[in-house]
């Protein structure tokens, strides 16, 4: 119960904090819109179905965009603020502190998601008909939280890099590319598909699409949630290992 409260309050606190910067909020909404606009122009020559396919994909791109760079530099930010040592020294497990931060980062992407769908509707006339509304409502938070959990794993994995933001930023395009946001996975070489299968955004995207366009979204949503939990479990193990190493070698501050 205490842990659930910590996760909930941590999420609320960081979501509010991340929402405070007008400039960053604007960027989180506007930046993915540029890519969505290009996609809409390219797909509008095709069927309305293709345009809706692109609209849903572009909307989830924003969630990943909000997570990748920010999560990569999440620990570095605490380091700059001088709070990393305090958080590590706190009696609460460090994972319970970091997880809400990265989930809040991905949740900020919901603004972008909504903006992209509205942008597509208003400027390109893309109607969003949802075949399975209940699944759709379930698929979005599961996808956002799973992406946040993926962000947690990235944040932990990059803890030893001062320039973690650049590594996080680097992951933006590849995940957009191979998770099927705008390009069907069948277009890629066969060796790419197993990589996309271990990425939660792939299944979240499929769940959202199947919910909106019709199909069987529940298995995809379940796999997305399962992968998110797996990332968290790996991240927790990594945290223990890395913090032990940082304590032994006195390298937490990277100075």
């Amino acid at each position, binding site marked *: 119960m205490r842990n659930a409260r910590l996760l909930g309050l941590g999420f609320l606190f960081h979501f509010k904090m991340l929402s405070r910067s007008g*400039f960053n909020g604007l960027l989180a909404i506007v930046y993915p819109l540029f890519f969505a606009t290009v996609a809409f122009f*390219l*797909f509008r020559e095709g069927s309305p179905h293709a345009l809706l396919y692109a609209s849903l994909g572009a909307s989830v791109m924003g969630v990943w965009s909000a997570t990748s760079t920010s999560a990569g530099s999440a620990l570095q930010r605490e380091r700059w603020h001088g709070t990393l040592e305090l958080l590590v020294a706190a009696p609460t497990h460090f994972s319970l502190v970091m997880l809400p931060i990265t989930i809040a980062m991905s949740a900020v992407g919901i603004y972008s998601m909504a903006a992209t769908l509205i942008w597509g509707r208003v400027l390109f006339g893309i109607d969003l008909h949802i075949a399975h509304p209940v699944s759709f409502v379930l698929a979005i938070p599961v996808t956002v939280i799973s992406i946040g959990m993926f962000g947690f794993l990235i944040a932990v994995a990059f803890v030893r890099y001062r320039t973690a933001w*650049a590594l996080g930023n680097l992951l933006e395009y590849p995940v957009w590319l191979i998770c099927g946001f705008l*390009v069907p996975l069948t*277009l*890629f070489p066969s060796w790419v598909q197993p990589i996309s299968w271990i990425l939660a955004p792939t299944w979240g995207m499929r769940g959202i699409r199947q919910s909106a366009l019709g199909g069987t979204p529940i298995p995809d949503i379940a796999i997305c949630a399962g992968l998110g939990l797996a990332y968290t479990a790996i991240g927790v193990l990594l945290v223990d290992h890395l913090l032990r190493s940082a304590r032994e070698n006195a390298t937490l501050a990277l100075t």
Partner: protein
Amino acid sequence: MTGARIFFVGGLLSYRALFNWLSPWIFVPTFLIAPIFQILLFVYIGRSAGVASDKFYVVGNALQYAAIPCIFAMSNTIAGERFQQTLGFVLATPAARLPLFVGRSLPVILNGIAVCAFAFVVGGAIVGIDVPSSAVGPLALTIAVSAASCTGLGLLIAAVGLRVRETAVLNNIVFGVLLVFTGANVPLSDLPGWMSFLAQGMPLTHGIEAARRLADGASLSSVAGLIGAEAAVGAAYLVLGYALLRFMEWQSRRLATLESV
């Protein structure tokens, strides 16, 4: 002589001191790997949408990605002085402002050329496009002019950075505008009229068009007009950027906003 030293030596020193992306941990992922993935993203979107050839996206995105070094580096090497608390010292010097500010653009242009050429060659090799060997020289010239033109825009943004705190956000937004408007991925003929009209005044638009024609086998003389237009657009931004820098310098003295962060 002093002006030449400020231009070349001062420009290089400022670039190395203030553009912290030169660390391999930032340079490699940001300037060498990311443009390849941008090319691949749009090549595959293009294949999925069936709009244009792979070559169209390789050329468009390789040139458009030059915007990242040209805009970010240029704004960092000027607006970055504020964050280092050295802007006051720079502006207190009697050094002529033209070599002081514009000299910082030369390393940025070279950086832009290198990034663009790398993306073009590696992205093209991965996707498998054919470019006639006779086009290599003219393409190099087009890339150089496009990088210089985009750096002109970077100087303008750097000037804004003397007053606006969030230059990184501004740079990203400008990058996105160039992505949509310049025809890097959407042919100008497919854009609404007002967008293709505005694109004529943006850097990279004419350079991308010239590079595409050269890659398709056109001669240098047939695209000289486009390269000239690209150079003219870049020169206009350079003049505007320099004028705005001087204005911002004057304003920051008048309103005491030089060090406000």
